[in-house]
Every structure is written in structure tokens, then in C-alpha cells.
């Protein structure tokens, strides 16, 4: 009785601000829209049929979003893992500072961060100046307003989350496990591959899901770095709702995006359960 009374405020707040709007969005996605954008209160599957039968929506929007998010996730995980590994092997005092540095971008507004990335990637930005200056390319590379730019932007957003989730797992793996491998003849690289890497799989999984979830719902990054040329789900939903004034179809795009994320979470749960045995074994050892 008392416990339920205590959780009541949380249930009310979560219900009012998350569950009810979500249910409303799902309902909305099954309604039609009039020519001037007014919502018609009659059940229809039309929005979904329109989305799933139009190759523009399926290939150019949904699959592009998933593809770019997935590519960015792979890069985020590789970069984030390396970062986490370096931090995990640093001296404790250095560690604190490095973690702080990783978290620093998270306190800067995303729009500001992305705009500064535009300066860096621009035609005359430092990246192109270095590339041209070193003679790696003859003329500046187009690093803005294309898919590459969007992927770079998403990696920039997701890496800190990967670092933090992998670092936590790496910290929990005793160094002695690697040393033990070296006593039976493993080089440091072999010891890493056979011991540390498999034991850090739970961190890699958690980091990838986080990175993919953040990337697939990117909004600021594709708008600014894509410059309107790179179509993206959340941007499309926003434009459908505001420019086209078609709320039901915007809701449909949102629900489909939600389903993609949920499926990913399901895959993650399954993967964690398969890889879960070593993870629990560490805690027991």
C-alpha cells in the first residue's frame, strides 16, 4: 500500500507526459488528414500503406536513416572503444581528467556543437586546409551537406556515450586476467583478443545500442550538416507536421521510427542474454 502510494507521483507524471502523448501519436497515425490539414476522425491504414508502398519513403528515407545510423554506430563504437581503453589503462588521476574531457561536449548545446563542426568541415575549414596543405588532396573535399557530413556529425554525438559504457565494463575486468594470459605465452595483443575483448562485449553491446538509438533519431545533425539534401526520418516527420501540415502522416513516420528503435532494443536484449554468461561470471569471480 505504502509503496504504491510513493510511486504514484512518478506514475502520474510519466503517464501524463510520456505514455498519453505516445498513445495519442499512435492513434493519430491511424487517422486521415483533410486537404487543409485538419485531422479526420476516421480509422485508416492509409498512412502506413502510403509510407510502405512508396519507394521514396522506404528506400530514400527509412533505409537511408537506418543505414547512416548504422555506419555512424560502427565508427562510434570503434573510436569509443579505443578511447575507453586508453582511459582505462591511464593513471587514476589522468583518468578523472580524461573522463571529464569526454563528458565536456555533452554540456554544450547540440546546435552549437554541430555549427562548430560545420566550421571545422567547411571548404576552408582546418580539416581541408590540412588535407590540401599536406598534399593528400589537390582541392578541398566536399565534407559538408552530404551523407559523410551527417555520419561525422552523428559519430561526434555518439562517441562519448560509447566511451562511458565501455569504460565502465573495462574497469571491472581485473588486469590480472591479461597477465595470466601472458604467463601462458600470450603476447599483449593475443591477451587482449582472447581475454579483454570478449569480456568487454557487454559494454560494446550497450554502447552500440545507445549510439544507434541516438543516431537513428538524429534531428539537428542531418538538418545542419545535411543542409536539407540528406533526407532523414525525424527531419521528414518535422517537415510533414509543420510544412505539409499533415499531423497524421508525421505521426506515422514517428511510429515507424519508434518500431525500428524497439526492434533494435529487442535484438540487444537477446544479444546480452546470449553474451550474458561471461558478464555474470566476472561479477561472481
Amino acid at each position: 500500500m505504502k509503496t504504491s502510494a510513493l510511486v504514484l507521483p512518478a506514475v502520474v507524471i510519466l503517464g501524463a507526459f510520456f505514455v498519453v502523448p505516445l498513445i495519442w501519436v499512435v492513434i493519430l497515425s491511424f487517422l486521415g488528414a483533410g486537404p487543409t490539414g485538419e485531422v479526420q476522425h476516421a480509422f485508416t491504414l492509409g498512412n502506413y500503406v502510403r509510407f510502405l508502398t512508396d519507394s521514396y519513403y522506404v528506400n530514400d528515407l527509412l533505409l537511408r536513416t537506418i543505414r547512416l545510423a548504422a555506419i555512424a554506430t560502427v565508427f562510434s563504437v570503434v573510436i569509443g572503444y579505443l578511447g575507453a581503453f586508453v582511459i582505462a589503462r591511464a593513471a587514476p588521476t589522468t583518468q578523472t581528467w580524461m573522463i571529464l574531457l569526454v563528458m565536456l561536449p555533452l554540456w554544450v548545446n547540440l546546435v552549437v556543437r554541430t555549427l562548430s563542426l560545420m566550421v571545422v568541415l567547411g571548404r576552408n575549414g582546418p580539416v581541408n586546409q590540412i588535407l590540401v596543405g599536406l598534399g593528400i588532396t589537390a582541392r578541398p573535399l566536399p565534407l559538408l551537406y552530404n551523407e559523410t557530413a551527417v555520419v561525422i556529425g552523428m559519430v561526434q554525438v555518439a562517441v562519448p556515450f560509447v566511451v562511458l559504457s565501455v569504460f565502465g565494463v573495462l574497469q571491472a575486468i581485473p588486469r590480472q586476467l591479461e597477465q595470466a594470459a601472458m604467463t601462458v605465452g600470450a603476447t599483449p595483443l593475443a591477451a587482449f583478443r582472447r581475454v579483454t575483448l570478449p569480456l568487454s562485449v557487454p559494454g560494446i553491446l550497450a554502447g552500440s545500442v545507445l549510439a544507434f538509438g541516438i543516431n537513428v533519431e538524429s534531428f539537428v545533425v542531418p538538418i545542419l550538416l545535411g543542409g536539407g539534401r540528406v533526407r532523414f526520418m525525424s527531419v521528414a516527420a518535422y517537415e510533414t507536421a509543420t510544412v505539409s501540415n499533415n499531423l497524421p502522416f508525421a505521426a506515422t513516420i514517428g511510429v515507424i521510427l519508434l518500431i525500428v528503435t524497439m526492434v533494435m532494443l529487442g535484438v540487444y536484449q537477446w544479444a546480452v542474454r546470449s553474451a550474458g554468461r561471461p558478464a555474470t561470471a566476472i561479477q561472481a569471480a
Partner: protein
Amino acid sequence: MGQISVNRVSKSWGSFVALDSIDLDVREGEFLSVLGPSGCGKSTLLRIIAGLEAPSGGEIHLAGRNVTRDPVWKRRIGFVFQNFALWPHLSVFRNVSMGLELRRTPAAELRKRVNDALAMVQLEALADRLPSQLSGGQQQRVALARAIVLKPEVLLLDEPLSALDKNLRQDMQVELKTLQQTLGLTTVFVTHDQEEALSLSDRVVVMNKGVIEQLDTPDAIYNRPVSEYVARFVGEAFFFRGRVEERGATQGMRLAEDMVIPVEGAGQRAGRDGVAFVRPEWVTLDTPQPHGDVELPRGVVDRLMFFGQSSDYLVTLGNRQMRVKRRPDAPKFRAGDTVILRCQARLLPNAASAP
């Protein structure tokens, strides 16, 4: 040169000297214990022999080869960690087989050698388990099998039994010794448990603050320690300080005006101050006679402590308390009884350093 040869090895971190020019030779097939309190440098020495730590100076030879510059994975060692350090994501079999996998051992030979090693520690039945599904003693055996399966030149054990409870530890001591003898493995065993060191070893090294205090057989370490530190660390000791004097053919130590205790020990040192010690089982308590033994030390029995297989008297001598093993054939004393001490104390050789 022995199977393991440690040559003037030093290790320091900043101004802290963990090892100060250690020399040590371990003979082939020998079981050598390194005994000392935590922080004496014993684990550092072992890790340097293994290559897990680089020495600040000196050389390490294993089986006649200078391995000082060799990284740990090139030395042919078996190492058992204090907390076993088994790989939690691999089965018992894979834990043992990894070293062979790394050497690209053919599958049939690998399987045979792993199974042989597991059989040697009686774990064949549990080959498919994960380490987390094993008891502490079984994990210990896996760690041992992992170390011996590679037929190492030396076996290095870093307090391998300290994580086990007492009964299990005693069983494992026997098993470990049997295994070591069967395989004829040159073994260095680091421990802070003096009983373990004495019962298992051919020779014992007692370390103190980065230097070797004494290197000798367990019997010599226990009965003829070279210093107060060794006497105190290896078993229980009660110390007497006084002037050594000649008493006919024997020596005595005058503790006070009317108190002399018979002593033995290296060298003639009559007329000089010295330190002697007794162990609880060297002393016999006796009832004081009105006429004889006037000069023997006297004490008062505090109480009798019963341990089952044996019991100790706590005896107050002046303002100090000593422990004396009760002999079953001797008369029984009660708290408050005055007793005389019959014993022969042993003089420590380096009396000069005694306070």
C-alpha cells in the same frame, strides 16, 4: 648455477626500495618458499622472476638462460595468482588449453595434454564448467593445471592458498607438494604463512624490507634463526637479554642478580651481552624446590589454554608473558602457581644488533 638464478636484483619505485640487491639460486626440482610479511618484497621478487615486473637492476637466469630482457610471454614459466585469475568466459578445459592453443599444438595432442593436466588435479569431470561454477578449491586446481600443462621450466606460486579456508588449505598443501614432487618442478612459493612454508619447502627464504634475512632449510630457519626478526616471524619466540657467562662446560645467560638461564649457540661469547630465545615447546615447567635451582627463572602461571590436540600455559615472567606447551607427562599447574622454567635458550648470532 641453479634452475632459477637471481643476480643482484633490485626494484624501487621512486624512493621506495622494494628489493635491495637480491641474490638467490633455486636448484633444479627444489621447492623453495619465500616467506615474509606483506610489503617485504616477496611478491615483487616473484613477479620479477616471472617477467610481470621489470627489475630496476640485476639479472634473472632461468634454466641457464639470461631472461632479464625477455617479456613474460617468452619465459617458460607457470604462474599461479593469489586469486587464481581464471578467465571467466572460458570453460575449465579452455582455461587450461589456452597456452597450448597459443603454441599451435595439434588438436589431438592438445586434448591429451589438457586431460592429463586436469586428471592430475582430479578435475576431468568438470572440464566443461565455467570457473564461476566451481568451488574455491576447484578453481585453485584449475589455476594449477593451467600452469603445469605447458611443462614450464619453473613453477611460480603467489600465495596460492591464502584465498582458501583452513581445512581446504591443508588438503591443497598436500596435493601441491605431491604434484610438485611427481613432476619434479622447480618451484618458488610465496607465502606469509610460516607453517605452510616450513611444511612444504626444501628451503625457505625469509625476507624483510626488501632484503633476504635468512635462506636455509625449514629446520634451520626454525631452530637456528639468524636474527630476532626471523625467530619472531617463524613461529613463536620468547626473548631473553643478558650477559653470557661461562659455567663450566656450558654457557649461561645472566638475566638479573639471581637469575641465570642455560644457553647454547654459535661461538664463545662469554662476558658479552647477547639475546637468546626459546620456543614454547622447548620449555618445561617445574615446581620450585626449596634448595635446588635457585638461579633458574621463575614465573607465575596465568592460565591454561586448551586447543584440543594440545594446550598452552600462559606464564608471567616479570612483566612479560610467555607461552609454554604443556607436556602431558608433566605435573599440572593451576593459575597462580609459581613455577621454574627448565630449558636451554638459543643464542642469536648477531647479538650486536640487539637492543
